[in-house]
């Protein structure tokens, strides 16, 4: 039991800092989202519970939940919500907010991959698939990486033969024409987004 149980404090925080957070209070707890989610049995909390936890003031539990990271963006919940809440957007917004605060669950695979993907992309404005794949294989150590790489050997060779995989990408790789312009765009976008959500960059 926290002191702020069933107070508006955390709800207000979510409204201020989370994408579509102002919609959370409109949930009427029918449970259609929970029943529609293909991942329902596999995550800690359904959207219905996450929204109730927000209103119950359970800040720690919400932000450290793995639920938002498990979302595959199938949009079943949005399609079915009788109150027309943008549930998928809210879930991603919560994930993002938890990540920014450093409260997101450590070692959560989806989260790790998302971080890796963004860093890969943001560096040169293009996704370097070779580095991304290798980074993913080796995230759990050298041994695990080699094992995973050997398991996928045939696929890799196939891609190489079909000219879909260039080994030279390991040395820097391709990039956008105006790299500094791209970095400026990303920085500006982040600045605008942070201002909109009241977060310090």
């Amino acid at each position, binding site marked *: *039991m926290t002191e702020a149980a*069933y107070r*508006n404090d955390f709800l207000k925080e979510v409204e201020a800092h989370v994408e579509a957070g102002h919609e959370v209070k*409109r949930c*009427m*707890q029918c449970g259609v989202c929970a029943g529609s989610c293909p991942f329902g049995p596999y995550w800690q909390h359904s959207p219905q*519970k996450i929204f*109730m*936890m927000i209103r119950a003031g359970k800040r720690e539990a919400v932000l450290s939940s793995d639920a938002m990271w498990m979302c595959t963006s199938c949009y079943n919940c949005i399609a079915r919500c009788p109150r027309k809440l943008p549930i998928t957007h809210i879930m991603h917004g919560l994930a993002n907010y938890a990540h920014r605060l450093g409260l997101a669950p450590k070692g959560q695979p989806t989260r790790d991959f998302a971080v890796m993907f963004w860093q890969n992309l943001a560096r040169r404005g293009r996704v370097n698939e070779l580095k991304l794949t290798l980074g993913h294989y080796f995230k759990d150590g050298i041994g695990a990486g080699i094992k995973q790489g050997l398991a996928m050997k045939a696929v890799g060779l196939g891609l190489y033969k079909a000219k879909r995989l260039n080994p030279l990408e390991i040395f820097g790789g391709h990039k956008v024409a105006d790299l500094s312009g791209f970095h400026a765009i990303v920085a500006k976008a982040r600045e605008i987004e942070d201002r909109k959500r009241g977060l310090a960059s």
Partner: protein
Amino acid sequence: MSEMKTAAYICTGCGIGDKIDAGTLEKIAAKEGKMALVKRHEFLCGAAGVQMIRDDIDQEGVTHVMLAGCSRRAKSEAFDFPATATTRANLREGVLWVVAEGGEHDEIRQEMADDYVRMACAELKKMKVPAGNPATANNKRILVVGGGFSGMTAALAAADAGYQAVIVEKSGQLGGWAARTWKRVPAAMPYAEPQETGVAELIDRIVSHPKISVHLNATVAETRGAPGRFAVDVATESGAAHSEEVGAIIQASGFTPYDIARLPELGGGAPNVVDHAGLEALAIAADGGAIKRSDGAEVKSVVFVQCAGQRDDSGAHLPYCSGHCCATSIKQAMYFKNANPDVDTVVIYQDLRVPGMGEDFYRSAQNKGVIFTKGKATAVKAAGNGLRVDFRDLILDEDAAVEADLVVLATGQVANSGVDIELPDEDPAKAQKVSILNLAYRQGKDLPILKHGFNDSHFICFPYETRRTGIYASGPVRRPMDMQQAGEDAVGAALKAIQAVENASLGRAAHPRSGDLSFPNVRLEGCTQCKRCTVECPFGAIDEDEKRFPVFNESRCRRCGTCMGACPVRVISFENYNVDTVGSQIKCLDMPDEFSEKPRILILACENDAYPALDMAGLQRHVYSAFVRAIPVRCLGSVNMVWITDALNSGWDGIMLMGCKKGDDYQCHFVKGSEMAHYRMSKVDDTLQQLGLENERVVTHEVAITDNARCARLINDYVAQIMAIGLSPMKGFG
């Protein structure tokens, strides 16, 4: 109408003439039915056919008309001869459409049609054109008991329609609970904000209306009479008493909030725990500003506990939902949010139910940041300077607690319905209650109660009707409701009251046989003062005089005939519906002998639901046995035991009674008629045993108007059962 002249008209339209031999019917009508005039027409309900009948009435002096063709429920506008006794033989829905196709059924189909013509002729000769209740009464004033929102709205509706209205209000001012409410749940687009109650304006209109008079600090000391001639003694607090003559009464005595002191586990009685009414008082005091507790502290957090002492299945509290509390709590939470959005407002609900346009209102509250949490409150305790509400969060499935400066318990509405007349006099619960109407009726002082203390009225079919003719219940006295519904109720009840006074002035029946001119005649010289009619009348229409003879108050009567069914000496009758009109039909049949393998099954079918269901079985071509003969009755309650014994003595092989659903969720148009019939028939076994007959020969069924296929099935199953036990040995003695 001195001389009776009968005429029979046989229609061969709609295919009747193709399958049924009209010539035979004509012979039966003339020879057995002894009809003075017998005519055949191929399109009787057409202009030419109807004109033929009219001409006979005008020129030939025909006073009694038998129409053989479609059901009495069809073409009733074409065959409308108000000054002529009219009956119908149901050849279309009752024979043509229900008897199986094919030549092998021609004989039994013809026999069925023949019998229906015999029965209609027999009935016709026993009928008279009803003259109307001579004891008409012309008082058209309307008394409204209760000056709350519902009562005031009813009085205004009646007065605006041109009828004098009198309000009797127990307290010193008009307005009731509505006047003690700061704002009301919105009744208009966009259903987003609490709105003004409008009660002050309503009171102004009442006070200044030339057709409305008001008695404050007044109660009803006694009510005597009947629609059109009620005499009501009004007692005022000052001791002054005077009498009001009125034509109809609207009981809008409202509700009392369930006593929160009975909910100590939820903090009832503790400081800073209030009910809805208590919060309204705080809101009125704040008048849009910050709401303060009784100790003067500004409320920064409030918890609403829904269903407090309601929907309780333990028997300790109210078992029902009061319907308005979800919307009322939403409204009250908005009081706080509108004054200061930073006040934490939590509504702990089990099922949020907001009828009408309440969903919009609910959404509006959510947008304001009211927190709704599905849970069940288990305890409210003092904590620090405020309170702590323990509850089970039903979404997160865990025990939780929330602290608050103020707790509002959403308690239910308890009807101010007066004395439960069904309780025995020695029951202490009866003595505790104060009568509202103090009726000087044989059956008790107040309107009968259905359940949970609410006045008996049929929710869906006839909501304002009570079991006392000319007295209409309106508002939360008949079921829990909010202001919106109470206002609609009030107008409905006012219209019913107007209908009642108009019918009474014309000597006609009120609902459900509205406009019926027949009324019960009693041959007092044959009466044995058994009191069954006075006890069993569902509407308390019959009082007793000093010698304990029944005193019929015709304009209190609904014309169901339950008294006629009850009377062991058969002295009660209606001009066009009596022991003879049905009895003669039962006895006129051409009864096949015991070895014919042609049983005869009598169906006595309630004309409100069962008979239409049979008609519709025909319309939908549900085939049923041609061995049955159906007679419509006004209500199963009007079935006199003599019809049963007569039928058994005449050799009928089985009797089916078809009436409406009985019990708490009754569908009987006369409330208790069907129940009464079922009760009487439960005792029929003795009669059957005396006659040496099997118990299966009399069966009773509850039938809804939609049970079309089921009716056919019931009939066919029953005929098979009768065939199995064999035909009645009583044939040939009748």
